[in-house]
């Protein structure tokens, strides 16, 4: 059995920059701290050793002067030396050891130092004392045939070094934090133009094709902003060309279609006098012309929406009147409108465009959803909702957004596929009315198209 590898958490660009800055600051500050510590320690230690050596020679000459005076014992000479705190003085004379401390003896003087002094040279070694690390200084005093030693504990030196270490460590940590903050700030600053680009791209995707990035003096950004704006220019031109083409084609089709429908109407009035086969053919032509007309109306309406001519002729109407009339003009029963609420649900809409949108939703329910089941209108805060329910098996979640795109056609149950324009017309009409349309699921399993319109006040023209 292979264990599934857990993918590492992907680090964002911002986090990456922050971490890099922090790591850099940490390395630099750590190097600096270590260096500072080493130099300072060497200096302090050397200074301490010099002091101890100087003190040792001074004390040694003092003892020597004492011992030269006839009759003075070593103990007396030692007694006259008043060593500083932490310092113990030893004198060896004729293999006899004297100490200024009651508790310390010759064993506290390092052997190496003793041998060096015995050979006639003064010396200094690091050692450990009862009070921690210390220095041992040895000076031969040949004039009185004695050897002089001083053992100095250096807790102050240790304390100074400890403090230095702590301070440096704290500074290293602070520098790292400062590095992280700097990185965060820098990342934000560097990524700010990217956010602007992302925002512009989102607006363009949302249909605001006029969106452009503001020009800049920044030489680093000139290229990307230039390319971006050029890309959007090209995109806009292409979209507008497509829209213009569609508009031109549909405009061209209006006159022949009008002639066709009018001529077919003339034929229909004489239907009874036609042979049976001609009647059947005429009926086919009539039905197909109806579809043609409906598709062309959708195209023309989309062209108007593209041209920004949507929702210009607004009137305030009760949404239920709107739905009831849309049901009636499309040859459906007004009883499909369910739910009665006492309050008026007024919306400010272009009635004809909203009618077209609603009828498209009803047609969609009949065509793809096994039939329109119910339409309900309800108020929800500042919104008016129109729910259009069908009897089908619902729309798969991953298709619920896509079905509102232009020329996307759902799987049709009947033999009559739609034009792929109906739902996109609904979506764009609602967008032009500051509303929206969504597809959701109802517990019964069918699809529900929810139309949401801003609720208007009763006042107004």
């Amino acid at each position, binding site marked *: 059995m292979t264990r599934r590898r857990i993918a590492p958490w992907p680090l964002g660009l911002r986090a990456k920059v922050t971490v890099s800055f922090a790591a850099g600051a940490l390395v630099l500050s750590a190097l600096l701290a270590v260096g500072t510590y080493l130099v300072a320690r060497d200096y302090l230690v050397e200074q301490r050793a010099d002091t101890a050596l100087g003190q040792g020679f001074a004390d040694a000459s003092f003892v020597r002067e004492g011992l030269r005076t006839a009759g003075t014992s070593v103990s007396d000479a030692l007694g006259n030396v008043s060593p500083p705190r932490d310092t113990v003085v030893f004198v060896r004379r004729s293999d006899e050891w004297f100490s200024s401390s009651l508790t310390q003896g010759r064993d506290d003087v390092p052997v190496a130092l003793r041998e060096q002094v015995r050979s006639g040279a003064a010396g200094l070694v690091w050692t450990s004392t009862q009070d921690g690390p210390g220095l041992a200084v040895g000076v031969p005093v040949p004039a009185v045939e004695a050897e002089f030693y001083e053992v100095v504990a250096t807790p102050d030196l240790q304390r100074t070094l400890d403090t230095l270490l702590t301070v440096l460590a704290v500074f290293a940590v602070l520098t790292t934090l400062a590095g992280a903050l700097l990185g965060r700030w820098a990342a934000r600053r560097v990524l700010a133009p990217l956010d602007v680009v992302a925002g512009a791209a989102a607006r363009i995707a949302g249909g605001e094709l006029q969106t452009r990035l503001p020009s800049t003096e920044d030489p680093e950004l000139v290229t990307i902003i230039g390319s971006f704006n050029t890309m959007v220019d090209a995109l806009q031109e292409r979209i507008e060309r497509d829209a213009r083409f569609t508009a031109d084609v549909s*405009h061209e*089709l*209006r*006159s*022949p*279609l*009008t*002639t066709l*429908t*009018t*001529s077919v*109407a*003339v034929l229909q*009035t004489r239907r009874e006098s036609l042979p049976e086969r001609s009647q059947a053919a005429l009926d086919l032509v009539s039905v197909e012309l109806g579809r043609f*007309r409906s598709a*062309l*109306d959708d195209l*023309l309406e989309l062209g*108007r929406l593209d041209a920004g*001519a949507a929702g*210009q*002729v607004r*009137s*305030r109407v009760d949404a239920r*009147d*709107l739905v009831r*009339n849309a049901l009636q*003009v499309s040859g459906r029963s007004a009883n499909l409108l369910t739910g009665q609420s006492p309050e008026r649900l007024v919306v400010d809409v272009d*009635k*004809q465009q909203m*009618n077209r949108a609603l009828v498209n939703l009803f047609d969609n329910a009949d065509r793809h959803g096994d039939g329109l089941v119910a339409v309900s209108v309800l108020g929800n805060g500042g919104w008016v909702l129109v729910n259009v329910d069908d009897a089908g098996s619902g729309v798969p979640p991953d298709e619920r957004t896509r079905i509102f795109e232009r020329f996307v056609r759902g799987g049709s149950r009947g033999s009559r596929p739609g034009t792929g324009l109906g739902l996109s017309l609904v979506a764009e009409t609602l967008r032009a009315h500051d509303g929206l349309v969504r597809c959701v699921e109802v517990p019964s399993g069918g699809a529900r198209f929810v139309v949401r319109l801003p609720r208007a006040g*009763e*006042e*107004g*023209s």
Partner: protein
Amino acid sequence: MWRVGARLLVVEDDDGIRSSLSLALQDEGYDVVATSSAEDALDALRGAPMDLMLVDLMLGGMDGFTFIRTVRPTSDAPIIVLSARADTHDIVAALEAGADDYVTKPFELKEVTARLRALRRRGGRPPEPEQAQDLVVLDSESHLVLDAGAGRVRKGDGDVHLTVTEFRLLRELASPAGRVLSRQSLLASVWDRGFFGDERIVDVHVRRLRTKIEPDAGQPRLVVTVRGLGYRLDTR
């Protein structure tokens, strides 16, 4: 039913639409005169007055707007515009030029016949006998009187020239005066339009009516707007 043989002028430069409309409207009982340009239409009008007109806005030569403005001073017959677009500007401009209603292409025959029937219905003169005695004083100051029976509006000794539709709108507002009528109800009673009718038709006609009967159309005191509700006729 309307009178058989109502004279209908069709001005349309698209051969297909003109021919098919002529066929269909002749079937409906109209006496159709079809022309392909505004100039020809003006010639035809010089020959004989028309009861109704169907006018395309986009014509070669003189356009539909100019044609309507040229015809209006001498003809009060209902004019229905065949508009290529449902654009706001075109339709409002045509209505302001004097058109009574509009149909946008592509249209279906039944839309055209419904519009024609609505404007023809009760619109022609002379009026129905039962309205023969109606006299409404609209403005005693300027001696403005609606004579529904005679189908005209008198101001002092002269007549105020109203189109058929303007007259019907005024008559609707005046029976009786003082009621607030919504745009919807005016659309239904004068234009026979349903819920989805264009309320701007009412607004433009009210504007046109005001310029003809109000002492100061900028400060209307006869046909007043009732905000959020509609219009009301206040007689003085």
